[in-house]
């Protein structure tokens, strides 16, 4: 997915870009409102992440401008201000959601996904693997005509595996991606979700292969 990040603090912007890059997203960075406006006019973004306190104005004025220009790219506000007073005005101005700094990237991802799901119509780019169709935004998996609604971790696991077909993921890597560092889970927890996905994919041309001592890999018959 393609993001526009509007954030004046270069270190934070850098950190967010590199973290989002890890998940395979492409991020353009604007440090000012003027840059952000220029980026938003030219580029097609799936989502805009907007800081509120910017050197050449308030992020809220960008939001107003953005909505006035009938640009319906969803906006998630990154706010560092007090939680009680700010949130209501933010949503009133047309932000789709907001995240309070500092944030957990898993939460940001989840919020992005939720916003995209709310905003998206029926026509969504889906991933096709053999006889399996996968809609990562809405979390649907279609196996030979049967639609399955995936739970969040199943969805994220499948997304990870499909984004890098043929790559081997260690259990540790999967734990890191699926669980917050807060959840003190063992590597075995991944097996539960692998098991569930395998059950969903049963009878299809897609399968998850276990490589003993190395991890898992997604394969499918052409």
């Amino acid at each position, binding site marked *: 997915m393609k993001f526009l990040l509007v954030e004046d*603090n270069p*270190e*934070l912007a850098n*950190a*967010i870009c*590199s*973290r989002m890059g*890890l998940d395979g997203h492409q991020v353009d960075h604007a440090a000012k409102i003027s840059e952000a406006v220029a980026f938003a006019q030219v580029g097609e973004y799936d989502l805009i992440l907007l800081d509120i*306190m910017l050197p050449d104005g308030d992020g809220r004025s960008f939001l107003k401008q953005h909505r006035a220009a009938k640009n319906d790219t969803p906006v998630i506000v*990154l706010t*560092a*201000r*007090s*939680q*009680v*007073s*700010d949130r*209501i005005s933010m949503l009133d101005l047309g932000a789709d*959601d907001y995240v*309070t*700094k*500092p*944030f*957990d*990237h*898993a*939460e940001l991802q*989840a*919020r992005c*996904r*939720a916003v995209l799901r709310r905003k998206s119509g029926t026509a969504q780019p889906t991933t096709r693997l053999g006889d399996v169709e996968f809609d990562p935004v809405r979390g649907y998996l279609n196996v030979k005509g049967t639609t399955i609604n995936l*739970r*969040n*971790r199943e969805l994220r696991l499948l997304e990870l595996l499909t984004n890098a077909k043929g790559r081997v993921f260690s259990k*540790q890597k999967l734990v*890191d*991606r699926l669980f*917050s*560092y*807060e*959840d*003190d889970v063992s590597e075995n927890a991944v097996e539960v979700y692998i098991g569930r996905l395998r059950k969903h994919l049963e009878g299809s041309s897609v399968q998850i292969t276990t490589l003993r001592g190395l991890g898992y890999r997604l394969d499918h018959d052409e």
Partner: protein
Amino acid sequence: MTNNVVVFGSLRNRLAMILTGGAALLAVLLFFVVRAYATQIAQQGQDSILGASVSSILDAAVLRDGAVELDFPYASLSMLSTSADDRVFYAIYEDGALLSGYDGLGAVLPVQSGESMFTSTNYDNATIRVATASRILIGIDTPRQVSVSVAQTQDALAETLNRISRNVALFGAGFFALATALAFWAASTTIGQLSRLTTSVTRRGPQDLSPFLKPVPSEMVPLVGSLNTLMSRLDQSLKQSEDFIAEAAHRVRTPLATVRSYAEATFQRVETQENRDALRSMMRAIDESSRAAGQLLDHAMVTFRAENLEREDVELDGLLRDLVQRMMPVADMRDVTIDLESTEPAIIRGDPVLLQNAFRNLIDNALKYAPADTSITIHVQTKPRISVDVLDQGRGFLPAEMDKLAGRFVRGGDTQGHIGSGLGLTIAQDVATAHNGTMVLSNRPEGGACVTLQF
């Protein structure tokens, strides 16, 4: 607050008392002045008749053959008849010796002739008015002095005076009543200006600190002026502290966010267990501090707003629906579902920002302790009172700690693995109290915690 103002007297009563007292004094004064004047007039009337009577008797006195002869004119006594049948006495003296009539009228014999002297005295158990005049009759040998006294009781006079007094008293009382009514009206209108100012200040919302601009009487200008100055100072300091809180939060959180994001990006790359553990505790520390900062600011804001509670109709079910939608992504991440059970609109008077904050804290808590693949239920009830239960399927509360958990910075003994500041339940309880409600903690029989806010 009205309850700690020391009340000393009342302007309205003081004003009314002064005006009424003045009116009473004036009424009494009026009574006595009019009565004295009436007495004087009536006395003058009686005196002039008595004087006329005396001089007509005296005129009839002649000296014949050296002896005083007096042909008593009866008209001189009949002119004294009154409605009250006053008694009339007379006495005639010749050179100071009683010639005829009643003795002991106490008449003072005038030195000069021609003029009447009037005295009041007691005679035969009645107050009488005595008029005395004398005349010198020049005879052949010696001049003779003839004195005549005519006296009359004062029953008719007293009756007239009583009647006048009664009327004057009635008039005085009427004047007093009217003046009192006017005094109260005047006091009320004057004080009414003050009450109007009070009402318009009281009726303002707690956030309205704009100056008072309606016209006021000149005497109240200094009061309204200092009130306006006070409000503008308060407004300014509130704005400053709000800006300060926002700015402080921004300054603290932005670098924390930078560290957090770097740590997380690094965490995804490093392989050695030792480094991973280090990064893990680093992120945990960052989350602890940012959460504590957030909760402290929230708590300060809740305390401030609870003291200045702005009430409006809040649809609890709608508010909860929005909140659930907003929390859903976080719940999804943990594979926890949130179910909102509400059958009919639940509307309470309150501050939506506070209520939202309280429920967010409760749902946050439930999310923290709910195991994966379970559900959190929010149950809204409207009967008998409006109450909201937040139920999870976690471990529940430790029974021994339940009554302490709402205290500030108190955390359960079984929460080591979870990040928290110990303020979530405090905030929820403060919000409930501010809305005249209560917070009740319990454990569900089927396992899990239940927090109930009753309004």
